[in-house]
């Protein structure tokens, strides 16, 4: 098990490094002029001003030199500064990234708390109308684009019914009540989509496990159906669900980008989208990098969790 953990750790590190390098090179090999794009909001620059700025940003050095420099900074936790306003990226990310994670965690909780019971119900009522209904709802939930459902939710609960506030972010420290109220709508929108996926995963996994040998054995032994269901089936079905959920965190992180945009939740999506619109490469780089690192970390943890839960891996037979 320990060897496995170590292997995964090393692999994850290289994975993260690989992501960093791919991001760096793709951004620096981009067509178009980074300097002109990032500074051009006045459109009044002289050619010599652009040259000077390019030199100041270090963009006239060779690519390898820039890369080495960037990696060296990265090792120290310095993600560089924005082209547009010179703000340290690490600082802005430290402020915005936790807000996105908060959304992700909230959505995950909602997704799991709703999805797993729904999946179980779907299994017990397989092929009956409840199953069809839940399946249909799940399908609808993952099909409707998140920005559409987000807009509808915002319109309904925020603007028409006025049950919840729609703007004016307050941090948890400043006003927990208001903060949580602001969190509900975006988290629920994302969470429902997550729930739909979890429901289907749970259902599939449970059906799979239910047909397996050891469940048949348990039934044959005459154990009560309830016990069979919850203890044997669910416990084993949870394993793949956990794994797949860990993988879905990546989708959630992507989903937060759109949701944050719709609900004006000041997470990293604002940072990213504004930077992409302005061609502020270092910021785009930084956000993608940190997200990739985070995702690799989550995958690692899920793998380790999986390994510790799955007797086959734990006992060494991978």
């Amino acid at each position, binding site marked *: 098990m320990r060897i496995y953990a170590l292997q995964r750790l090393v692999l994850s590190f290289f994975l993260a490094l690989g992501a960093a390098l791919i991001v760096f090179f793709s951004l620096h090999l981009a067509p178009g002029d980074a300097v002109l794009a990032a500074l051009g909001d006045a459109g009044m620059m002289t050619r010599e001003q652009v040259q000077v700025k390019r030199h100041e940003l270090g963009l006239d050095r060779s690519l390898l030199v820039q890369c080495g420099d960037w990696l060296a900074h990265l090792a120290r936790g310095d993600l560089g500064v924005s082209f547009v306003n010179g703000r340290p990226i690490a600082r802005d990310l430290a402020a915005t990234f936790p807000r996105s994670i908060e959304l992700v965690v909230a959505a995950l909780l909602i997704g799991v708390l709703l999805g797993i019971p729904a999946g179980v119900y779907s299994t017990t009522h397989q092929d009956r109308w409840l199953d069809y209904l839940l399946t249909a709802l799940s399908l609808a939930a993952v099909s409707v*684009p998140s920005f559409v459902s987000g807009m509808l939710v915002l319109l309904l609960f925020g603007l028409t019914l006025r049950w919840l506030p729609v703007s004016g972010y307050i941090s948890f420290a400043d006003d927990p009540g208001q903060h949580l109220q602001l969190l509900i709508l975006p988290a629920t929108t994302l969470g429902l989509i997550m729930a739909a996926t979890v429901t289907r995963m749970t259902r599939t996994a449970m059906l799979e496990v239910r047909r397996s040998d050891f469940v048949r054995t348990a039934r044959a032994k005459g154990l009560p159906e309830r016990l069979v269901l919850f203890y044997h089936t669910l416990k084993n079905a949870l394993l793949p669900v956990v794994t797949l959920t860990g993988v879905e965190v990546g989708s959630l992180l*992507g989903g937060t980008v759109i949701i944050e945009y719709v609900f004006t939740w000041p997470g990293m999506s604002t940072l990213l989208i504004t930077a992409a619109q302005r061609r502020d490469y270092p910021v785009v780089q930084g956000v993608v990098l940190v997200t990739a690192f985070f995702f690799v970390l989550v995958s690692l943890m899920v793998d380790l969790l*999986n390994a510790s839960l799955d007797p086959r891996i734990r006992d060494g037979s991978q």
Partner: protein
Amino acid sequence: MAQRLEKIPGGAPTQAMPEDATALARRGRWRSRRVLGGGGTLLFFLLAAILAPVLAPHDPLLPDPAHALAGPSAAYLLGNDEFGRDVLTRLMYGARISLLVSTASIALGVAIGIGAGLVAGYYGALPDLLVMRCADVILAIPPVLLAIAVVAILGPGVLNLILTIAVIYAPRFTRVAYASTRAVRGREYVAAALALGASDRRILARTILPAIIAPLLVQAALALGAAMLLESGLSFIGLGIQAPTPSWGLMVSSARELMAQDPLLVIWPSTVLAVAVLAFNVLGDGVRDLLDPRH
């Protein structure tokens, strides 16, 4: 969110153990209904898209300020947008763009995936390492974020979008192709063919390729809906299809700003989008059920 078809660990190999013959029959009917339903809807969209230049009542791009934000009428069945353009026409032309981007990008992704996965799975060693690690790295970055980053590099637009989405989904196909290639490669008849002097290419084309088509098709069908969601999401935040080219996501975005004045405007593209993605997902599920030996 794409559904992933990984081998579900922890499940013992199964035998189909239906509790009830009727249930099995019902399931079978449901499956074919899904393919029919999903496929049928998509066919409808496809026809609308292809025949748009012929069937569409008006010009999708020409503004007509006299009719700006008008409601549904005889000439303009679904009303007009802020430029006075016919919503129905733009929806039909939007179908062209949205379908084009989704299918082209996935097709391209599959092509890349087959190429990369075959090479990695067949030759092993260095190609394996390079290709699969690259795939892992791309998979480590959430699709939407990666798409935004690539758009920051390449700029928005139809071609760039197709390329972007293809690159994002290619690793999934690579993995499937890789796994199947590895599985087939070890078989006896391959060894026999090699012993008889068959070239690599022949083996790849004759034996391996046919084996991986089915799982790839399943993955592709499942990915189509995700591709459409990705394209519409990007267009919505302004980093995808650029105005005035009609795209459903873009139409939702402009309609959103005008919700106070014309709430109907946002409903049409939203509905059409949801139905299209739904159809893709249903079709994908259906294809998976048909082709996947496990179900």
